[in-house]
């Protein structure tokens, strides 16, 4: 059990260390492994925002996919209408020419 006196001294020491400006000599010169089986800590707020962003990104991606499918459908429908119009026009032309043949003396 740490005594309150020791805790106060430790806190004061760390405060003093924080107050001093860092010099180039304070920079790390080696990488040390964390003792024990420590896992990386993540910010809960960041993860929460990421999760809610992901929800909307997935939903909007779905809307975009549906939009693309609908556009392809619209294009195919337009092509079919063109073909029908062309067929109707040639039928009319045939009917017109046969009428003019009949009218010829």
């Amino acid at each position, binding site marked *: 059990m740490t005594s309150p006196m020791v805790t106060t001294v430790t806190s004061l020491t760390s405060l003093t260390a924080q107050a001093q400006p860092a010099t180039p000599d304070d920079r790390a010169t080696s990488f040390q492994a964390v003792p024990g089986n420590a896992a990386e800590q993540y910010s*809960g707020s960041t993860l*929460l925002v*990421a999760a809610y962003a992901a929800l909307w990104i997935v939903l909007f991606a779905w809307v975009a996919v549906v939009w693309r499918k609908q556009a392809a459908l619209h294009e*195919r429908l337009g*092509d*079919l209408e063109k073909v029908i119009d062309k067929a109707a026009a040639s039928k009319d032309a045939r009917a017109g020419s046969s009428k003019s043949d009949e009218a010829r003396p």
Partner: protein
Amino acid sequence: MPARSRTLDAVFYALLALTAATFVGEILFIFLRAPIEARMGIVQKIFYFHVPSWYGMYIGAGACFLGSLAYLVRATDVRDAFARAGAEVAVVCGAIGLITGPLWGAKAWGHFWTWDPRLTTALLSFLIYVAYLVLRAFAGDGSGERRFAAAMGVLGAANLPIIHYSVQKWGGQHPVVITGQGGGLQHPDMKLALAGGFLCFTLMAVLMLWARTRLELAQSRLARAEADAIDLGLDTRTEG
């Protein structure tokens, strides 16, 4: 436009507005009313969309199962379209669950992913419906392909009860808060927030199923019209 179609459109738009309003209300409730969980902190709020997203996946998978089964009994365009729409809903909701779960796990467990029984079976189920959609997208739309996909839709549902009971049967790290021996949500606002999440995903899944079934049906009708045009000797090849 026929009167029936107008009525259906009105119902669809009303449902769309209700879903949007429910989502807005749910988000406000989660962040302004639901309390912060004592041990995990704010990240626990992922729970209110994470669990309902898997429930949404079950709705989609259930629709795929029913549509596929009905198609195998008697093949119609509507049944096939419903099964396909169900698989798509399952993939969308499963993707939400698979993304939000690891983000929560990173804080709660210190790992984004573990090969826990529930996580593994859930991933497997998601991949089954992805495979279904890949099959539908690339294997053509003949009656043989449709029947094969229907069989896959029926068999794919076999994994759903395994996901649900995997935690009770095989243990693992996944929490059992609201099912099995779990202690449940200890605050009434937490319960309300979760109920709101379920409502949001139910409405959303119904909307998605409806919209996709309608689109699939329109595609089938168009394909039939194109085939009829070819039978009548019309050249359906596009120019340029």
